[in-house]
């Protein structure tokens, strides 16, 4: 996830950027093209549905004033979540990389665990907290106003997406060359100026990468937004599908949402164009940790508050459900099998996503061209599109072209991989940016083929990035709902589906062990990621 850029030597001659790449090996070009074409499937489907309406209805649908309101609401939500996650992630990343605070390793793990919390559990936790008969009122008699609407959605989304930004910032801060700030200091810059003119610009790529992933997540999230009943695009799409059974207006809303997502993606690629400096050619020297001193009296309460809200709250609500009406013990016996089904689909999906993210990352980093950028950016379509719309597109597509694949495990895995390809791409691309192409070239010239080069040269240097990508996708798939509902083999109930069907019948206690299994198992995989990272 480190955003520092080493110049990659493009294989084609310098000059005008060319549209069609030359000299891109087939084993990179072909998978990249397959990924890009796959992303066209949902676009094609939405277009088809959108133009089913007659022209009068069409004009009415597209130019409703409500769309503008939805746009404003969605932008406000994305801005709110981006701002709040920054407030949550930045101090945390700073504390664990730049200061002498204790228990850094544990704090880091705690900072990533919220990713494992399903959005609907977080939303339930927040909603259940406030109100007349909220958990808080029942336990302490103290009554909090009901948490819902804009602030509820912003808070819920922020509490489980901030780790994306934290991971990016932590890597960037840790990779920052200590010499830079020291040089700036020796030139007479004040601490504040150093931060603004040296540190911050170097953190921009990490900030942008994190913000982009979070903003796109916000656009597509149904669960929390729907439970908080905030009128964003995704909620409107949800009510269209579920309330009015209307696929035409829903398709228009999804297309508008995609246009918004693509403008975010473009904005990101405009900002992250600048080259970043290092001093000298040696190894970047890590910074000496800053002593916290009295500031720790501020730091610890902040950390307590952050983790109480992001981990304590959902754990508390699960425990509360469980204690409210303890389910039969035999019930717990079903958790392992369900867990196996969840993981058995999520792991192949994560590997598949990483397998396609690798050639995509190589294409953009080693063979940059407008074409490469276009292909790489198309990967964000699957991530930004509302999952329900993506699932319906795959239903439509597979029933017409490959009915034997319909509602098979393979279909679920492919669709999950499409939905999360962008998530795997981030860390792999960052890792690749930090390695120089000279090693690969040397391997080539020594007669190694692409596979041998990958196994012996590339993989050892990218394994952290690949592992990070795999874990991010895995964690997302473990809690995924709409795609599973529609595309999983009939009878293939995952943990997330079980949690949903139990909560919808009001059997919260029975849902709790399955929800806990999601959180615990995903947390373990996150822990694995961080221990493998090594020093």
């Amino acid at each position, binding site marked *: 996830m480190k955003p520092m850029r080493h110049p990659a030597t493009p294989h084609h001659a310098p000059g005008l950027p060319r549209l069609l790449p030359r000299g891109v090996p087939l084993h990179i070009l072909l998978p990249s093209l397959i990924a890009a074409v796959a992303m066209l499937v949902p676009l094609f489907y939405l277009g088809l549905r959108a133009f089913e309406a007659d022209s009068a209805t069409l004009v009415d649908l597209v130019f409703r004033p409500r769309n503008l309101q939805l746009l404003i609401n969605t932008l406000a939500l994305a801005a709110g979540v981006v701002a709040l996650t920054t407030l949550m992630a930045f101090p945390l990343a700073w504390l664990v990389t730049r200061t002498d605070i204790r228990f850094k390793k544990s704090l880091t793990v705690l900072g990533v665990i919220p990713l494992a919390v399903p959005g609907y559990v977080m939303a339930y936790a927040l909603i259940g907290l406030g*109100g007349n008969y909220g958990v808080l009122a029942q336990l302490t008699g103290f009554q909090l106003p009901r948490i819902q609407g804009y602030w509820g959605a912003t808070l819920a989304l922020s509490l489980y997406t901030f780790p994306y930004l934290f991971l990016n910032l932590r890597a960037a801060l840790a990779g920052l060359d200590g010499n830079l700030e020291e040089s700036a200091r020796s030139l007479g810059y004040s601490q504040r100026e150093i931060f603004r003119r040296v540190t911050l610009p170097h953190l921009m790529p990490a900030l942008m990468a994190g913000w982009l992933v979070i903003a796109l997540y916000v656009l597509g999230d149904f669960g929390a937004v729907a439970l908080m009943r905030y009128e964003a695009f995704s909620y409107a799409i949800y009510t269209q599908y579920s309330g009015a059974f209307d696929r035409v207006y829903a398709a228009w809303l999804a297309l508008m949402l995609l246009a918004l997502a693509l403008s975010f993606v473009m904005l990101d690629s405009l900002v992250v164009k600048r080259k970043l400096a290092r001093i000298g050619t040696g190894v970047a020297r890590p910074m000496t940790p800053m002593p916290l001193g009295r500031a720790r009296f501020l730091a610890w309460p902040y950390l307590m508050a952050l983790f109480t809200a992001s981990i304590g709250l959902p754990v508390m609500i699960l425990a509360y459900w469980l204690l409210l009406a303890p389910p039969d013990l035999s019930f717990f016996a079903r958790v392992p099998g369900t867990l196996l089904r969840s993981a058995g689909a999520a792991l192949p999906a994560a590997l598949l996503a990483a397998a396609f993210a690798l050639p995509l990352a190589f294409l953009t980093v080693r063979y940059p061209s407008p074409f490469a950028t276009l292909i790489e950016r198309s990967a964000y379509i699957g991530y930004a599109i509302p999952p329900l719309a993506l699932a319906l597109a795959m239903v439509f597509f597979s029933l017409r072209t490959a009915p034997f694949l319909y509602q098979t495990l393979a279909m679920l895995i492919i669709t999950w991989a499409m939905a999360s390809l962008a998530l795997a791409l981030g860390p792999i691309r960052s890792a690749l940016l930090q390695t120089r192409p000279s090693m690969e070239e040397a391997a080539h010239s020594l007669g190694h083929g692409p596979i041998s080069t990958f196994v012996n040269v590339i993989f050892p240097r990218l394994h952290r990035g690949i592992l990070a990508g795999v874990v991010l996708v895995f964690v997302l798939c473990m809690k995924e709902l709409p795609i599973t509902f529609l595309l999983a083999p009939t009878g293939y109930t995952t943990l997330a*589906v079980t949690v949903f069907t139990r909560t919808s019948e009001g059997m919260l206690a029975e849902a709790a062990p399955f929800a806990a299994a999601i959180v615990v198992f995903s947390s373990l995989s996150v822990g694995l990621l961080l221990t493998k990272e090594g020093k």
Partner: protein
Amino acid sequence: MHKSLFTAATVAATLLAAPLASAADLTLYSGRGESMVEPLISQFEQNTGISVAVRYGDTAQLAVLLQEEGRRSPADLYWGQDAGAMGALSKAGLLAELPNDIYENLPGIYTSETGNWVAASGRARVVAYSPERAGEDELPDSAFDLVDERYEGRVGWAPTNGSFQSFITAMRVEHCDERTLAWLEGMKSNGAVTFRNNTTQVQGIADGEIDFALVNSYYLPRFLDSDADFPVEQAFFADGDIGNLVNVAGIAVLESSDNREAAVEFVRFLLSSAAQQYFTGNVYEYPVTRDVIQNPVLEDFDRLLEVSPQIDLDDLEDLEGTLNLLRDAGLL
């Protein structure tokens, strides 16, 4: 080592997928939860030797999925939680006609005029109240009475709840949008207390925060199950009032089914006295047939028919209009 990991994962995935390829005789898309459906499925399989694979999901999302699948759908049966979804599928021409002996003896409130689907169980709306704080003469005759001054600040409701919204849709069908909107606004200005769902409203009466609540009939029995002295009672409004709407969970055979005979057999099974007894005995819903032992905590079957308004359940599909109305009233 890494390569072997990849290979192992792929092999594991394939092995996991293989046994699932074997298809059951029937495929059921169920909007009703697993905990409730599962015992019935095993009973059916035991009785008939017909195997059933169940896809669980959200009632509405499964309905949209069926629309997308069209005649290519692998599903034979759809079991939805409310009449709106059934009506939408029926309108889309996706449901097969049922043999009329299945529904001809059922009361009108439990059948569709199209004959394409039939209720599997009934879920009545009632007014729950505190017997201590609400006098006998205070029990309202109509949901429309609740905007009256004497109910100010004493009534709970849950405008975001699905079954409440179905009730509003029914009110719109019966009494037009203007009157419904006026009622919503009247309730709001009369200080109706907003709750999240039915359960919290019933709890709210017990805790003394409100005296009346608009809820589904099967929540109070669940409370009484664990606490026989629970200080809440419930009643119907006057006969035929819209407040007594009986919504249903419906079952239908799909036009795309390649095993209709077995599918129809499943429908018959759900309407059999064994299954009906299970609905009323275990989950406190109303049976749709008479030949079951009355659950003592529920109203009598014939009484239910007297009190319920006559609404064509196929008309309850316009949820979007209801959501708009609730938005206009500032409740969403």
